[in-house]
């Protein structure tokens, strides 16, 4: 591999950086090669490691330096994209990272669907309860015992519904907390401590 192909490949991996940062980084490495001189080209390449490795380390370090220091100048969005980039450039390879991300994503989706299902169940429960009580009231003149048992059933359903109701915010909290946690942990794991 020579300097040109090395830089080409490095560009490929760093392309998604914010434009200004991308240009800065590429300029830096281009100048570095220039200053090292053609006779040291292979030494420099060996020192840097493969373009993929170098890009991965660079992105990780940039994320870490940003999150530790000048947090003001870096918006959340920028940090998020950098973190995502770091994951994709990581040596474990894109397929593995993609699988992990998709798995986590489906986990979050499952929790969310459970929540939706529970809410629908509760709505149905209250609707049925209302219907039963109304039916019971209407049936009272015809059959007192029948009417009362219908009203009783309706009341029972309302009771069950009220018992289950407080679970909804808890599950919502768990879903939210869990998804946020996994996303942050996923990004933090990629950062190489040095």
């Amino acid at each position: 591999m020579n300097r040109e192909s090395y830089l080409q490949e490095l560009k490929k991996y760093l392309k998604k950086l914010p434009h200004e940062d991308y240009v800065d980084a590429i300029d830096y490495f281009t100048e570095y090669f220039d200053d090292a001189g053609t006779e040291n080209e292979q030494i420099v390449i060996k020192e840097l490691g493969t373009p993929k490795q170098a890009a991965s380390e660079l992105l990780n370090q940039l994320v870490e330096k940003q999150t530790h220091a000048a947090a003001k100048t870096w918006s959340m969005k920028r940090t998020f994209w950098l973190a995502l980039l770091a994951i994709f450039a990581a040596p474990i390879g894109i397929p593995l990272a993609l699988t992990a991300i998709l798995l986590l994503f489906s986990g979050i989706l499952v929790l969310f669907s459970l929540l939706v299902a529970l809410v629908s169940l509760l709505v149905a429960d209250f609707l049925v309860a209302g219907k039963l009580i109304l039916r019971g009231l209407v049936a009272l003149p015809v059959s007192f015992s029948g009417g009362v048992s219908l009203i009783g059933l309706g009341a029972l359903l309302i009771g069950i519904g009220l018992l289950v109701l407080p679970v909804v915010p808890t599950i919502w909290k768990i879903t939210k907390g869990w998804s946020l946690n996994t996303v942050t942990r996923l990004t933090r794991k990629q950062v190489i401590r040095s």
Partner: protein
Amino acid sequence: MYYPVSSVLIECIILSVVETADSYGYEISQTVKLVADIKESTLYPILKKLEKNGDLTTYTQIFQGRKRKYYSLTPVGKEHLQFLRHEWSKYRDSLDAIIEGGIRE
């Protein structure tokens, strides 16, 4: 070098290098490499951070028909360097006292 060099110490080294005269990436890197086994992929983000924090400013100059980015120390960076130097001498003296002088708590 056998002992690892932390990124804070590398900041101190970089600021010291550009204190006397402005310098460029390769030169700074070669100086840092005298004491630290460090890759460009680690050094560059540190330079970038110092620049973002306002310790360093950069300008481009033409050298042999191509661009070269120079780093120079700002007043903020000078102050930061003083702090880092002070911390370093405290650290070094304590270490020396223990390693060479056998000091105990």
